[in-house]
């Protein structure tokens, strides 16, 4: 590790320590019952929204306090954690936040924004919500981080867990924000295969599982029609997705779009699986 990296690590550690000890903090984010004393320098350099709040001529600038009445305190806590460390904890915990009565007509109990009284949030949903929060407050780093975490997790979980996160992905950001939606759609395309793998060698079970999976998709589609639209569009643009060993070897994601006819990787142009395919279907001698 060179001295530059040393310096950065040390710097970040020291600033995080200053927040924990409430040293030099000059601004406070409040959310529900929680108060987060922070440094303007840290939050304003990462978010233009906070910057506008701190430097503008509005109430926040004079009171030194920004209230976020409609955000989830657990999420805000993660956001602050990210602002000071570049990451956040997303382990599954019981979320016990009770939404307050809306102070204005803005609150709408049935909207996706409002959180039910008690809810267990899965890590995948936490990432989706963190992404939305990052979008709202314009924190680019957090957006990237959350979407990466989401992508990583999305291919390892069961289909119903993934589909559970779709409302969070589609309701909390506007259509123009594509990053997370694209990742969710791509993961959703691979999910049925994972489900069916559980029923390998058992045609009956396979049929049953397929039907159940289709039902799950239909349910989500009813809730978020845009998701279905994106899914269809995705199949038109990329008909097939496979593992590409070449891309994996040079550090790109292993999953790559493939041409359906000859399984040629669209990204690198190689036909990775050709030999294996040939081997598999070669006539026996």
């Amino acid at each position, binding site marked *: 590790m060179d001295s530059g990296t040393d310096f950065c690590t040390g710097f970040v550690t020291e600033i995080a320590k200053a927040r924990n000890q409430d040293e030099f903090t000059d601004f406070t984010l409040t959310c529900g019952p929680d108060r987060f004393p922070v440094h303007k320098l840290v939050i304003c350099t990462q978010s233009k*929204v906070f910057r506008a709040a701190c430097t503008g001529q*509005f109430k926040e600038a004079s009171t030194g306090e920004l209230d976020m009445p409609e955000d989830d305190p657990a999420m805000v806590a993660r956001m602050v954690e990210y602002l000071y460390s570049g990451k956040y904890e997303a382990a599954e915990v019981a979320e016990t936040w009770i939404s307050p009565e809306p102070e204005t007509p803005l609150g709408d109990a049935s909207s996706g924004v409002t959180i039910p009284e008690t809810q267990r949030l899965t890590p995948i949903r936490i990432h989706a919500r963190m992404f939305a929060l990052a979008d709202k407050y*314009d924190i680019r780093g957090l957006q990237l981080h959350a979407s990466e975490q989401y992508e990583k997790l999305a291919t390892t979980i069961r289909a119903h867990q993934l589909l559970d996160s779709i409302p969070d992905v589609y309701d909390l950001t506007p259509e123009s924000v594509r990053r997370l939606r694209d990742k969710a759609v791509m993961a959703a395309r691979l999910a049925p295969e994972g489900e069916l793998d559980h029923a390998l060698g058992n045609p009956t079970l396979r049929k049953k599982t397929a039907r159940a999976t289709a039902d799950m998709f239909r349910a989500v589609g009813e809730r978020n029609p845009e998701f279905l639209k994106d899914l269809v569009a995705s199949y038109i643009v990329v008909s097939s997705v496979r593992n590409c060993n070449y891309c994996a070897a040079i550090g790109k994601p292993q999953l790559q779009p493939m041409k359906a006819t000859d399984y040629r990787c669209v990204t690198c142009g190689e036909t990775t699986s050709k030999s294996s395919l040939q081997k598999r279907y070669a006539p026996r001698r």
Partner: protein
Amino acid sequence: MHKEASEFEPCWDILRSAMTDIHKKNAGSLSFEQLYRASYKIVLRKKGGDLYERVKVFEEEWFRDHIMPRISELITNNLINVALIQAPGTSLHERRQMGEKFLRGVRDAWKDHNMSMNMIADILMYLDRAYTVETKQPSIFAATISLFRNHILRNTLSSSQEQFNHDFIVFDILNAVVLDLINMERDGDIIDRNLLKQITSMLEDLYETDDEIGDQRLYLRVFEPRYLQASRAFYRQECEKLVRESDAGSWLRHCRRRLNEEKDRCGTTVSLLTSEKIAKVVESELVMAKLAEFLAMEGSGLKVMIDNDRVEDLSILYELIARVDPSMTPLKGTLQSRIMELGLEIEKNLKNTDFSAPSNGGGADGEEAAETAEKSKAQPLTAAAQQTAAAIKWVDDVLFLKDKFDNLWTNCFREDLILQSAITKSFSDFINMFNRSSEYVSLFIDDNLKRGAKAKTDAEVDVVLDKAIVLLRYLTDRDMFERYYQKHLAKRLLRNGSDIDTEKDMVSRMKSEMGNAFTSKFEGMFKDMELSRDLSENYRDHIRQLGDVDTQKIDLGVHVLTLTTWPPEVMGRSTTQEDASKGQCNYPPNIKRLQDSFFKFYLKDRSGRVLTWVGSAGTADIRCTFPKVPGKETGPLSKERRYELNVSTYGMIILQLFNDLAEGESLSFEEIQAKTNIPPQDLQRNLASLSIAPKARVLLKEPASKSVKPSDRFSFNSGFVSKSIKIKAPTITSISKVEGDEERRETEKKNDQTRSHTIDAAIVRIMKARKQFGHTQLTTEVITQLANRFKPEISLIKKRIEDLLGRDYLERVEGEPNVYRYLA
């Protein structure tokens, strides 16, 4: 969906009332978070487009109802009159007050609007990010800030007044007022610069369209062109006024001041974007427009600046011209012609003095003496010395001129290379136009080296040598200079009249400046001198060893000079007609013996050589005894007097004749000439030296006039008296002095002969290498090869080629009239 849609109105209400508060400067109690969230929600619910439109409508209404009335109030008919048609009858003060009030109103409205729009853009930040950018529309800030442009600046005032036959917009008034104020400042008024700066910044922040394309700032598109146009008009007028009423010196200072002012103004009042453009305007309108007129101004123009060394004026002038014309054309031309004029003036002054100068040794007539007295306060000089003085004066004048221009070049022209070569060229031109320059430069060196060793310090001599080299560089006819320098150097060496180290220093400088070939003769002369010294020593030793003690005790010092390296004049080989018959003079027997003895000694080691004794070049120290004059009991004449007399070799021969003469006898000029066979001219000079100059008048002349005539008679001056023991007979000679016209033609003729040979050699050399060559190329090549020595005339080259054709060195190639072939 219904619920989502219904959310829009409450959110918009919040935003609208907040925007009103912001405009009313009541934003302090508003929660940024709440407003941001309201707009965030609207966008999230896909109502960004509606919000965008509503904000625009709101702002337009606000503008119409609250800001426009304020501005309209300021635009009075009076203001319009003053700004657009410069109506008479308003005082400057009034005009300024009114203009500044208007600008202040615009500025305040702008400041408010700008601040409000910034705040509104802050709360609508999410709208810009998620909606405006996606739909490729101007940002909400750009869309609202430009209301100022559309509704104020471009507001058409259809004035009720009849004198306007066309509509105009507020922007026109704004520009006119700003330009008027700036012109007031140019005229010396104090204006509110800060206010103008704020106005121009506003124009920089506004664009032609909402797309905010960099070069479409209103400042650049609308204001700046008008500003430049108005400035151009202002400076054109000012320049015309200056050329009528002022002089070049104050014009220069004015230009400098205006340029600085405009530069400052860009920083304090308008925009730095304009600095270069406004500088160009001043340069073209104020500097260049009447440049020629100002430079030609009687009494203050460039000529006067140069003549009076107006360093500051010239510095400014240089700076100004350097800005506009790096090739320096306007300055270069005048500078060159002025150098030529001054150079020719030097020559003219000299010529006026030189005309009456006789070719040599004759008496100076009264007129000339008077002129001499004018020229220098010293005692009336001999004619020859006057010539030298003229040469020295010429060189001094040229060097003075050179110093002057060097000085200007360093102090005013920043050592500009273009000007340097221009100055050098002009100097070279006028120096070479003067046909005696080569001779005078050599004479100058001669004069300084002769006296230099005694009167001047090393450093001073060094300076003189440097100057001489400077002049030398300008000379194109270097072969002429070589000829003169050889002659002068020979004289100095034989007379032992200079410091040999300084001489060598000078020659080595020439060597590094002009190459080995140029100085080979001079170096040969030095070598001869050294060898001769050794030779004389050896001869003395030889005599001593022989024990052959000469009763006369004649001590011999000999310079053996190589024929080719020494100038023919010194070697007694003058080619003038009258001297052609000149043979050896008759030496007295005692001298003859000595010569033979030395010749024998010399040939011991160097058989086959020929020595010729050159009587005209040597000197002799004679110890003379003047007997007591009978009848004188007191005073110096009462005793016997012994003097050591230093005379020329000829003088010695002459004096020896009188040794054999009895008391009271005399010899006529013809008798002396017959006995000695000294050439008449030399004899005349030597007799004059011994019988006229009071210092060494050891001979009496009959009649006692001031010049020697062939009919004169001479006798021994037994009553000679001198305060010093050692007496040097003054040399009356023309060799080391300025030439007369006769001699001069002679020298040129000789030089032309040498040149012919040099050109012949060059042609043959070139043709030998090329075998076949065209006439034009051959001519060019010859000129190139000889450039370092002299500039041959084309006609001469042509003549030489014809001569060589005639002598069968070359032949013409058949069918190609201008091509020659070399014949081996």
